């Protein structure tokens, strides 16, 4: 069953057609990837799906419900979490508070004006921190963490929203080889443990082929190929984009 279904999605900025009639389906429980060169429209597509941008045309169905035009916070509450290409956390809160605040909000406790914050949702927060490997850094200020840890924290925040679908925009962007491998392992573990569906964009082909079960290729805002890993590897159009005419 498709958890996410996109039909004829279009978005242009002035004269530039950033997303040109994209159709896409993401099957429940899958780790699926959208690849493409710089400027292919991957991030714009994510921004449209997550409600950051409104589309010009088309329809987005999430868990069977039409979410086209809904604001991001509503989409998050329906079960779609998102990480960004440039890590997006609360830098001047501690690692613990980053997760705790998200859990409190998700549980509808954000408007509680008088309860003492200390110890609230401690167990759940610690669970998520240990899941993303940050349990030893709970008290540290989030903004001073190394890049890899900041990305882990962002995954933790997304997990704390209790998503069914995680959108990860270039999760290994700017990471060293070691950090990249760790991050990929982490994404796989999380998806498996939490039975999550993951849709991510990526540049690094080794990353893509190592964890994706289904790949969609974009170029100039349109989808040029979609299929299983081996199909995409063998696709001539994809080879041309990534390896030149040769």
């Amino acid at each position, binding site marked *: 069953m498709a958890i996410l279904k996109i039909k004829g999605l279009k978005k242009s900025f002035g004269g530039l057609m950033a997303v040109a009639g994209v159709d896409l389906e993401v099957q429940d429980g899958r780790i699926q990837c959208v690849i493409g060169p710089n400027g292919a429209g991957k991030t714009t597509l994510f921004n449209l799906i*997550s409600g950051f941008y409104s589309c010009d045309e088309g329809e987005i169905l999430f868990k069977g419900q039409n979410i086209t035009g809904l*604001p*991001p*916070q*509503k989409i*998050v*509450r329906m079960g779609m*979490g*998102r990480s960004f290409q440039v890590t*997006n*956390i*609360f*830098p*001047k*809160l501690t690692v613990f*508070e*980053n997760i*705790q*605040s*998200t859990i*409190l*909000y*998700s549980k509808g*406790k*954000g*408007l*509680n*004006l*008088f*309860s*003492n*914050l*200390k110890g*609230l949702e401690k167990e759940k927060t610690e669970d998520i921190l240990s899941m993303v490997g940050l349990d030893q850094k709970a008290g540290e200020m989030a903004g001073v963490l190394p890049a890899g840890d900041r990305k882990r924290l962002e995954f933790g*925040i997304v997990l*704390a*929203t209790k998503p069914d679908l995680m959108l990860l925009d270039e999760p290994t962007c700017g990471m060293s080889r070691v950090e990249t491998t760790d991050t990929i392992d982490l994404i796989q573990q999380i998806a498996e443990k939490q039975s999550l569906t993951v849709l991510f964009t990526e540049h690094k082909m080794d990353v893509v082929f190592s964890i994706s079960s289904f790949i969609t290729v974009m170029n100039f805002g349109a989808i040029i190929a979609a299929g299983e890993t081996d199909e995409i590897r063998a696709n001539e159009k994809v080879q041309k984009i990534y390896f030149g005419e040769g």
Partner: protein
Amino acid sequence: MKKGSGAKWLWGAVAGLFLMALPFLLGKGFSEYYLYLATKIMVWALYAMSFNMVLGYGGMMSFGHAAFFGIGAYTCSLLLIKVSCPIALAVAVAPFAAAAAGFIIGYFSVRIKGVFYFATITLAFAQLAYILAFKWRSFTFGDDGIQGIPVPAWISTDETYVNYYFFSLIIILVCIYVLWKIVRSPFGLMLKSLRENPERATFVGMKVENYRLIAFVISAFFSGIAGVLYALLETSIAPDILFWSMSGEVILMGLLGGMNLFFGPALGAAIMVLLNSFITSYTEYWGMTLGITLILIVLFFPKGVGGLTVEKYQAWTQRKGN
């Protein structure tokens, strides 16, 4: 009880005892003026701390908070003067009027993106309130202001400020306790998180505008209480308390004391009231002195006097630990 928490309570108890004993300490050889000054500092401290809920915790640069201070002061004074309302009722109703104004102004302001536009719209609303107080002579007494606000003798007498000091001390301590609870509650954490990164807050599902509006209304309510206490202290008010410079002063208090600390703005208020009192007794160039002080603070101590003190203290304890 944990060690850190115990130390905080101890400091709180010491500060509380000091404030309770202050009139008796001042009574020996000091004039009533200093008691008036102490009361004024407390009132301004409450105003600055209320404002900090919006700027320091919520990251919203309101440039119109004088409106809530003034609406609190005017509502209480007009109720006492025009309808001879019982003092308890006037004091209780006025902050709600300020909160209602906070809701209206906040409703339109919190939706606006960008610090500059937010500051501008709040300033515009506050100036509107100022013009109303200034021009609507039949209701507000215009630029004459409201003179001779009747205050019962059990609260204040002409001879001494002692009663009023304790009256305002109790109210202010309760207000500070409530503000303290709020900033340490889940709501306080939500506020800090959206100050830090509104985009991420949106993508955890938070309806940012709602949280900002609630913070705005709470802040307006407590600013209204500060306004009430100011009116009863001075027993006269003028439209000046709604003017934009009053909104600017509360920002300066936060800058002076340190906006990242709960008590920072209170420290800033104390410094400003004392500097004003000291400097104006020697020179009429108060504004210039304040300007120079602020330039120095912003250039050399951007975290304010409180922030600097905490930083130095932490460095000292670390050295001691090593």
